[in-house]
């Protein structure tokens, strides 16, 4: 549904995108993850026909976003990383305005707006001024705006930023619902776990380059050679740390403030048993020994080297 080929964008001497390529299947959710300033917004703006890339091409439903932006605009709903609302309009008027901008007949708009407000759970706020809505409500209203012309593809730039935990969960549920409705969604965030359970695939971008693309499981298996093991000892963390470091499978040991040792370890489960036995035989009072899993946060920190601040 979405195909990006060698997309580059240069602002003066600064390269915001250094030739990224990826593909997104129909009716799936693709997570675009990277630290702030990595190039996510630039890539999404190009897809949304709001920016010309320096090089490369992008297609939505087979249509070149540069050659036929008008056709592409009918297919996409774009939600930028800011609200973009008119304060002096009421909620229904706001949606009605965008509906008319998409040339939807007035008679059809009424029904569409009512359905959309129900979908984003804002029916009770239909006659309120947009200005009076909470941040989460405004965000949901903006999502409703994206849907007013029933697009096939949704391009959402940080839709959950600045939302409280409850609003985040609501937003996630809403996106799942939209996927069920057959939408293809590309969503960006700088928080990987936020997207992990939602997205079939993620692309991790840093400093304008795609560090990894694929399913969350694929990225985990491909990119994380090391496992992270947490070891808790009753006493003698220094000694435990020394014993661990001597083991050939241990790449690094990190001692946390509460006396827990985080061990970066490569090896299978038998090798893990071996490591535990080594500790016990060395007389280390081990309280717990568990693989924490390469959670996405760790993985993200490892893949992105902190080039972008």
């Amino acid at each position, binding site marked *: 549904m979405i195909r990006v080929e060698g997309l580059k964008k240069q602002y003066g001497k600064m390269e915001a995108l250094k030739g990224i390529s990826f593909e997104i299947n129909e009716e799936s959710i693709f997570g675009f993850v990277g630290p702030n300033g990595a190039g996510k917004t630039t890539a999404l703006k190009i897809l949304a026909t709001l920016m010309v890339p320096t*090089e490369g091409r992008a297609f939505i439903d087979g249509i070149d976003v540069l050659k036929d932006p008008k056709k592409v605009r009918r297919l996409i709903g774009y939600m930028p990383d800011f609200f973009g609302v008119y304060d002096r309009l009421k909620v229904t008027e706001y949606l009605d*305005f965008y509906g008319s*901008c*998409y040339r939807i007949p007035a008679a059809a708009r009424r029904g569409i707006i009512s359905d959309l407000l129900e979908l984003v759970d804002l029916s009770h706020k239909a006659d309120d001024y947009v200005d009076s809505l909470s941040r989460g409500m405004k965000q949901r209203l903006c999502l409703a705006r994206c849907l007013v*012309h029933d697009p096939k593809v949704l391009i959402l730039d940080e839709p959950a930023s600045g939302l409280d935990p409850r609003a985040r969960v609501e937003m996630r549920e809403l996106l799942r619902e939209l996927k069920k409705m057959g939408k293809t969604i590309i969503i960006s965030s700088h928080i990987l776990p936020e997207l992990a359970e939602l997205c079939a695939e993620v692309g991790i971008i840093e400093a304008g380059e795609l560090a990894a693309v694929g399913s969350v499981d694929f990225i985990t298996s491909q990119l994380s050679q090391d496992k992270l093991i947490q070891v808790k000892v009753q006493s003698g963390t220094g000694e435990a740390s020394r014993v661990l470091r001597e083991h050939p499978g241990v790449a690094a040991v990190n001692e946390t403030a509460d006396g827990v040792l985080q061990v970066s370890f490569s090896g299978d489960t038998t090798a893990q048993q071996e490591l535990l036995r080594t500790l016990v035989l060395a007389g280390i009072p081990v309280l717990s020994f568990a693989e924490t899993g390469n959670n996405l946060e760790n993985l993200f920190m490892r893949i992105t080297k902190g080039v972008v601040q």
Partner: protein
Amino acid sequence: MIKNPVLMKELRDRVRTWRSPFLITFYLGILVIIGGFFLYERTMYGYAGPRALRMGMEIFNLMAVLQLLLIGFLTPGMTAGVISGERERQTLPLLMITRMSPLSVTVGKLLSAISYILLLVVLSLPLYSIVFFFGNISMREFLQAAGIYLVTTLTLGSIGIFFSSFFRRTTVAVVFSYGITFFLFAGTFFVAQMIRQIQQYASYAQGPVDVPFIIYFNPLVALGSGLPMGQNFLPFPGGMFPIKALAPWQVNLLLDAVIIIVAVGLATWLIHPLRAGTRKKG
């Protein structure tokens, strides 16, 4: 055009604020106070005889000039923030990805400003009943003045919209829009005066020189050339205008048409999201 969503939204937006009744009161208030004072002053000692014949024309001239000055005062303020305001609210990209073309956005914004000025002109119509009470004013003269209001509003509105799309900040756009408006109303007169003096000095022996071309840009001159007794308050009385085939207001109309097309065209180009392509060829 009436179905232009931007126009409909802007119209609704304009009448929802406290500014709207304030502006209407201000506009009509100025006309009533100054017109009333003028009327009082002229009728203090009666208005019988030949004075009465001139009265209608004099009040009409005063009201027409006053109204044009008010339009010059209000239009830049109404238009200079329309695009930059969208940028500041970050709603411009959202408009650009709809099926609205950049041209329909600029035209919608311009028409909403025009509609508001027209509303003010229509609201001031009852005041003209005084003019018609004294008589001596034809409908043609009245419509001609209304036409000049409309074209001047469109011109100043287009300039306002151009600066609004050129500058990111509304305050800068407002300053430039008022600057150009001031130049059209007063600056053109001073520049013309200077040019004329230099030319007169240079061609002293050859007799009087034409009025410099720049004066055609002045909306007051356009209005004056179409008013009864308007020749009296045109600058440089007795001076010949360089284009003999057309009346000054007709030349002004043509010049304004060019300004409107260029300003709206540039504004439309400036807000086009894919305009600034720095794409490598090949």
